[in-house]
């Protein structure tokens, strides 16, 4: 029922936008550029190439395309780039966006539907953009009696926690934001926050369906936490380290661990489905039982942020599966530097890193597709069957493969000086 204001004129609307752009341009020229210069003048600037960077040099180098390469080379090795862009947030968010679109088309094809079709000329390619605009422009309704600080903070915490997992994932040799010695345990520690956030949000929203959903999320995540941890234990036995980079290196020097530990890989896959609340384990969001579970009172951008966080979490867990069982970035070098057009002996990119990123992306995307697959073919399971699966079956399976790993190490097949270690 939206109506235009009475005096609406399209010409005046365009005119106001032109004025706005004009004012912004003037502000940038008069305040922004001098401010940048002042900051660059006082900030300690690093040596780039063979000369120390000065503000004037910085600006002239960024404008001249033949001299931009050293600056780019410097900035992609800073911590900020690793966190904000490549192995960190933007890479994960890109994966999340692609996953959302691919999931819809993929499930539609599986169920003989067409999926999103109208936004954008080709196969509804702009559906994601349309959904984002819709979510941003919808009103956020906070239910009466809700605990407002927690209600607003929980989605933000969800996104930030999901993004924090991605800092620990090594994407290529040396390309990891936080290369710590207890990387695997740190991943488990951060994943332990999610049931807490779900429970806090459900409690804060002062409604009955979210509270039931939050309790279900708590039960489900703790029922599958122990098989999740124990399935990674056999990988640690074979690799002898908790550092994720060293786990990948030990797989490169022997073989992919999914060949030795298929049961552990299966347990890890099932329990990561449960951690992600995906069908068949989507009891916390069961839409035919408890409206939308712990997301019932979410609206607008709060819902959007929680969805973004859960898809970033999907990427993180698929990448963790690839790192633990599928050999991480292991694969042949398929982008040698000599292939670049106009190759004159100057290497623009590192061939090993480029191939590593390629293989890691391919494997992670395949793993995400495998995680989307059950949604098209499986019904939801009951909560007592879920608890029974987690506590009785998966734990036993994880222990079976732990003993297999122990036998492989003590039988002299893997481990230091083993038969299969190159």
């Amino acid at each position, binding site marked *: 029922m939206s109506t235009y204001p009475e005096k609406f004129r399209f010409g005046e609307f365009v005119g106001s936008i032109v004025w706005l752009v004009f004012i912004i341009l003037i502000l940038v020229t008069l305040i922004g550029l001098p401010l940048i210069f002042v900051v660059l003048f006082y900030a300690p600037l690093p040596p780039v190439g063979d000369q120390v960077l000065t503000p004037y040099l910085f600006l002239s180098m960024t404008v001249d395309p033949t001299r931009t390469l050293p600056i780019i080379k410097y900035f992609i090795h800073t*911590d900020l780039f*690793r*966190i904000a862009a490549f192995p960190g*947030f933007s890479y994960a968010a890109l994966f999340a966006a692609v996953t959302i679109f691919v999931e819809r088309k993929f499930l539609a094809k599986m169920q003989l539907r067409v999926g999103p079709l109208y936004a954008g000329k080709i196969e509804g390619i702009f559906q994601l953009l349309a959904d984002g605009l819709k979510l*941003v422009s*919808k*009103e*956020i*309704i*906070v*239910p*009466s009696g809700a605990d407002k600080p927690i209600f*607003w903070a929980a*989605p*933000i915490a969800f*996104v*930030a*926690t999901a*993004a*924090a997992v*991605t*800092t*620990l994932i090594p994407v290529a040799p040396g390309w990891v*934001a*936080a290369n710590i*010695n207890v990387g695997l*345990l*740190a991943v*488990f520690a951060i994943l332990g926050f999610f049931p807490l956030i779900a429970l806090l949000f459900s409690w804060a*929203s*002062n*409604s*009955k369906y979210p*509270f*039931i959903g939050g*309790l279900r999320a708590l*039960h489900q995540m*703790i*029922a599958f936490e*122990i098989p999740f*941890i*124990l399935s990674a*234990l056999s990988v*640690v036995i074979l690799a*002898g380290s*908790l550092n994720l980079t060293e786990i990948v290196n030990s797989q490169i020097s022997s073989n992919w661990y999914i060949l030795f530990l298929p049961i552990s890989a299966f347990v890890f896959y099932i329990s990561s489905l449960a951690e992600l609340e995906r069908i068949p384990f989507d009891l916390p969001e069961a839409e035919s039982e408890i*409206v939308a579970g712990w997301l*019932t*009172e979410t609206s607008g*951008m*709060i819902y959007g*942020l929680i969805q973004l966080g859960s898809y970033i979490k999907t990427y993180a867990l698929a990448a963790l599966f690839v790192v633990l069982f599928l050999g991480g970035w292991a694969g042949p070098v398929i982008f040698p530097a000599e292939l670049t057009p106009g190759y004159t002996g100057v290497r623009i990119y590192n061939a090993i890193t480029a191939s590593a990123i390629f293989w890691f992306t391919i494997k992670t995307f395949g793993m995400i597709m495998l995680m989307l697959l059950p949604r098209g073919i499986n019904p939801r399971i009951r909560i007592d069957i879920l608890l029974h699966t987690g*506590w*009785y079956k998966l*734990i036993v399976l994880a*222990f079976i493969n732990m003993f297999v790993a*122990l036998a492989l*190490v*003590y039988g002299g097949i893997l*481990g230091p000086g083993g038969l299969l270690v190159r």
Partner: protein
Amino acid sequence: MAGETAASFAPILYMLGFGLLASIPALVLSRLISPRRRYNPVKFLPMECGQMPTGQGRSHFMMQYYAYILMFVVFDVISIFLFAWASSLFQIPRYATLPIIAFLGIMFASMGYALYLSGRKGIW
């Protein structure tokens, strides 16, 4: 040394901060451009499928399967202990695995008994 170990965790904290920086503007932007229509008391009621909500939102709930949560508190710690053994497996002598096998025996026995008790009806 300890400072270096602590500093290697710093990117995780930076990432938490970056997550806040990336998601707070989304909420602020949404708050700026989304419509905020006039107050309607029905609109802000908790969702109960179109009915008027009865009672408090945060009332007492039947906490089923409580036994499993109690079990989690114990067995999560036990399974994390196993990581300390597994990550140093190449450095310790082979006979040091025997006490771990005994430890696993204790863990299996207690887990079996706990699962037997949590499966019984009428005591929870």
